[in-house]
């Protein structure tokens, strides 16, 4: 039987760091962002016909400022993304799936970890990656439906603290899920 561990949370909380912890423990890593990019490439013509561009940056600008257009894009991408995900989970392995919009995609997991961080920290992380404060605010607004579920782990402080918390969770998981 496959074991699906989902890592969710808002932008800038540190989902990838958490997912990579489990990848380093032998889990097969799947990024829904990466699958999203692949599907975007596949659906480029359809996207171009609707949005007048298939440039990812331009599309991001459009949808992160317009919720209705975001839903249109999601309706194009999400069904195919779920299909690709199901095709990837074929072996009896432990998988870690990084999916900010897990709930919107309707992914069913054996265990979910939600990563949180203080807003101030999220802004610090994302502005240092080149996003403006307004862009971060717009993205966070569109992620209002990402609400904590499963195990909640906060990543507002140091990497060492995060590692300690993850060790506790992993040890518990090993005991209760026979990983």
């Amino acid at each position, binding site marked *: 039987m496959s074991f699906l561990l989902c890592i969710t949370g808002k932008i800038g909380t540190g989902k990838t760091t958490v997912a990579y912890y489990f990848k380093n423990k032998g889990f097969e890593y799947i990024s829904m962002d990466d699958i999203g990019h692949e599907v975007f490439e596949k659906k480029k013509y359809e996207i171009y016909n609707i949005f007048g561009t298939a440039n990812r940056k331009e599309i991001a600008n459009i949808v992160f400022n317009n919720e209705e257009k975001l839903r249109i894009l999601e309706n194009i991408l999400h069904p195919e993304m779920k299909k690709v995900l199901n095709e990837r989970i074929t072996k009896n392995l432990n998988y870690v799936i990084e999916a900010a919009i897990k709930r919107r995609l309707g992914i069913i997991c054996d265990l979910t970890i*939600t990563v*949180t961080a*203080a*807003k*101030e*920290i999220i802004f610090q992380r994302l502005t240092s990656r080149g996003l403006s404060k307004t862009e971060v605010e717009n993205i966070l607004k569109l992620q209002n439906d990402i*609400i*904590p*579920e*499963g195990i*909640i*782990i*906060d990543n*507002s*402080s140091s990497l060492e*603290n995060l590692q*300690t*918390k993850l060790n*506790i969770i992993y*040890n*518990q998981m090993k005991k209760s899920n026979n990983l």
Partner: protein
Amino acid sequence: MEKIIEIIKELFKPVEIYKSDNLITVILNTETDMEEKLSKFSKQISSIDEDLSLRFLTIEEKNKFDLNELGVKIF
């Protein structure tokens, strides 16, 4: 929920507890022996049917949050 809050108080000796929707944020002085405490906690709440999410923060971590991000202080 009251029962769970009581168990949290007894096991973790929190300094503060906040509630926001279904998320309970527990502020701790220290996170030592957390594995043992969490193990006891999961056993004690296994029979309670409550849809709650829990987050544990140290005081240092809590200070990075705006208070309105944590919700209403219930302890």
